């Protein structure tokens, strides 16, 4: 049953997500593209592109979109795909929500008696988790550097080289000039429209 699987998969992704939407991408890629083959790699990249340029948290956008396309790809009608989108979105939300309620109850009760030992343990815990999350995001980028997104040099060297230029342009634009990602995505899309 794809709905139940979507719910379970996204529950997992939700609770294991430290460090925001981008860290979630390698988890989603692993579950949805590699393990379950609900989406192709290029469909996944398109979903990320659209999720980056529409309002709301990236994690929710990707979950909603992935739920929709996964159900559609399994051959079911559109109304079922809408249901899939809702199921995936609720899946990604419910565990962190419950956990937050428990955590805030505990914190509010003990906020005055929070001893420095406990804070130190939590701080050193995150001194390991945060660097690992950086690795997770890097992995998402590396996994997407494939022939589906860049073309292959053997088959069409032209597309491959142009893709590398586009990659470099977006990279420098975002890192050095802090250009708005939506503007970058639109410019690169227009470049593709004119060149390819």
């Amino acid at each position, binding site marked *: 049953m794809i709905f139940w699987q979507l719910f379970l998969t996204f529950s997992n992704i*939700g609770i*294991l997500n430290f*460090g925001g*939407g*981008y860290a979630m991408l*390698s988890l989603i890629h692993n579950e949805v593209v*590699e393990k379950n083959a609900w989406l192709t790699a290029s469909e996944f*990249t*398109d979903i990320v*592109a*659209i999720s980056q340029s529409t*309002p*709301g*948290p*990236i*994690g*929710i*956008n990707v979950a*909603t979109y992935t739920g929709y396309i996964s159900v*559609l790809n399994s051959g079911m009608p559109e109304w079922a795909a*809408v249901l899939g*989108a809702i199921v995936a*979105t609720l899946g*990604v*939300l419910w565990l962190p*929500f419950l*956990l*937050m309620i428990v955590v*805030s109850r505990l914190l*509010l009760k003990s906020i005055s008696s929070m001893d420095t030992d406990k804070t130190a343990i*939590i*701080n*050193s*815990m995150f*001194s390991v988790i*945060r*660097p690992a*999350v*950086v*690795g*997770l995001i890097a*992995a998402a980028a590396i*996994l*997407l550097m494939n022939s*589906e*997104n*860049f073309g292959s040099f053997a088959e069409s060297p032209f*597309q491959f080289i142009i893709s590398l230029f*586009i*990659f470099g*342009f*977006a*990279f420098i634009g975002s*890192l050095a000039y802090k250009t708005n990602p*939506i503007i*970058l995505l639109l410019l690169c*899309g227009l470049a*593709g*429209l004119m060149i*390819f």
Partner: protein
Amino acid sequence: MNIYTDMFVTFFKVGLFTIGGGYAMIPMVENDVVRKKRWLGSEEFIDILAVAQAAPGLFAINMATYISMRIAATREGIRGWLLGLVGSLGVALPSVIVILLIAMFFQSFKNNPWVMRFFMGMRPAVVALILVPCLRMFKTAKISVNNIWIPISACALISFCGISPVLIVLCAVVCGFVYGKMKGGRR
């Protein structure tokens, strides 16, 4: 307006008008929750950000839930969990609506050659735009010569050895806990 509707509307607006993920929401939430509605003080708000960032899950949902629990703790007759639920659904709903509209629209245009070329140009840029926040996080994650092996091995295990990122996250949580305990015990 009662506080539940108010909460829903506030976070619906936040979800609708912020592009670029959870962190882009911070200034808008602060403006509404601290300055306009005066539900919380600004120091309380900073504490909330720290907790919402540290906990697993989506930053926006964590923020909405924790803010609600804080409000309920200081006022009589408010159910914190319900307020949190309303806020979380409020922040998620615009995404769901917008994405579903786009998904339905895009499915029927997917095979249009213009759209295909547009997306062919956009895909390499998507990869670059994932790499940039990763590099920016080097600072916030306090990565130095001593711990750079952590992100490098995490990344290599996932992308070259096919290890599930789930395992990497669980391993980091366990190792972090053990490391924290050991360090705490030494003092």
